[in-house]
């Protein structure tokens, strides 16, 4: 049994091929149209952002470098050293070593606190799972994205660095931008 195309056949319709004169005219006209298109870009001006001097503002939910938080009224750290962030981290870049709070040395609001809290930002994939896993909103993703350094070990951020405000603030996108 031979196969017949039936309704699967598609008829291709082509415009008649232009003659020599028509074709030449069409090529010439289309070239001029292309030239008009490129020339139209000059008065519009460049769209380039001159990066180190100008920065593209980030959205509020932009996931940049992490921040650790304190309670604003008491100044105590929100992190209680539960290591849920480290457990959630797919890149395995968070290291938490917890210690007991004592009345003499009270660091966090909970029973324990993070004696060591390190994030290896050269491994971090900025997925934000740590932020989701945290039961106390102690860690959030900040807006800082300029994270290059000369040494890989310099990219391991300690607790003090994560608690501190970033030196240079990243511009934040306004509501209407």
């Amino acid at each position, binding site marked *: 049994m031979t196969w017949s195309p039936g309704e699967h056949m598609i008829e291709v319709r082509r415009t008649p091929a232009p003659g020599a004169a028509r074709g030449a005219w069409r090529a010439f006209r289309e070239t001029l149209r292309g*030239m008009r298109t490129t020339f139209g*870009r*000059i008065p519009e001006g*460049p769209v380039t952002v*001159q990066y180190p001097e100008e920065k593209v503002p980030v959205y509020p939910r932009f996931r940049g470098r992490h921040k650790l938080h304190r309670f604003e009224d008491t100044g105590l750290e929100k992190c209680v050293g539960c290591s849920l962030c480290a457990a959630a981290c797919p890149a395995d870049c968070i290291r938490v070593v917890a210690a007991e709070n004592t009345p003499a040395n009270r660091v966090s609001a909970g029973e324990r606190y993070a004696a060591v809290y390190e994030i290896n930002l050269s491994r971090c994939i900025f997925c934000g799972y740590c932020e989701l896993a945290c039961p106390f909103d102690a860690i959030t993703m900040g807006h800082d994205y300029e994270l290059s350094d000369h040494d890989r070990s310099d990219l391991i951020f300690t607790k003090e660095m994560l608690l501190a405000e970033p030196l240079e603030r990243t511009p934040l996108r306004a509501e209407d931008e």
Partner: protein
Amino acid sequence: MSVLALVGYYEPWWVQVLKSIVIFAVALQLVPVVLIAERKLLGRFQSRYGPNRVGPFGLLQPMADILKLLTKEQFRPTTSVGLLFAVAPVISILTAVAAFALIPFGDTQRIFGTRVGLYGVDVSIGPLYLLAFGAIAFYGVMLGGWSSGSKYSFLGAMRGAAQLISYEVSQGLALLGVLFSSQTLSLTGIVHAQAGMWYVVPQFAGCLIFLIAGFAETNRAPFDLTEADAELVGGYNTEFGGGRFASYYFAEYLNVLVVSGITTTVFLGGWLLPFGLHPPGWVDPLVVLAKMSLVTFLFIWIRATLPRLRYDQLMSFGWKALLPLATLNALVTAIVVVATH
């Protein structure tokens, strides 16, 4: 009969030496200007800035490029042919400068009490001289590509050779119309013949054909198949680095200037101004430079607009479209000239 005998006067030897120095200096200064202009304009055409880091507005970028290239080590592949590898870029640059000498920047002027023509040399075989040096220039490309001992360079060079043969014919034929009308082969004579009307009007088709062939002759987009960065990783100049590469680059941009200058001279009335304006003699070079920069702008504009042709398209366009059109143009002009004289 010597070539100079037809010029009608002899310039003292020291004027000729001085002129060659001035022309070479001008050519040397114009190339970096075209370089930065092209990069800046290409940027603007593509909604970006272009170089803007070195010097004010990035204007010193060509200086930085040249400095970088000239301080690099001269190296060559082990498979290359040493002598030709060294000579090829020199041929390119030599022919470009030699062709630049042809462009008249103005009429003869009285300077230091002698008559000085504001051009390198006004030969009685102007367009032939131009085509001859255009043909020799491709030895630079071909020898460079072949002596590199690399197959991609060789491919680029072979394409260059084929392209030259295809387009030089049309270029010559496009000039024929002008030569019929002006009845002279001297470029200053051609400019004088345009006193009534620039040849771009009666010879519009010839001008277009000449320009298109000029794009091909200078290996500029959309005919930059000899270089074809994407396919041939740079074509004939792949294996060249440092000063030798700079020479090729210099020659390429100087060739753009030469084609601009010849277009200005032959079709755009050289140093003549429209509306019966007759400025003093010292303005002439400025007029020529202004017109040249307009044509160079067109070169850059085209480069920003058109994609590269496929190789078979290049060949069929050259032989099936450009050559018949150029022949027709020459034929019609000949008939008109004979009928009206």
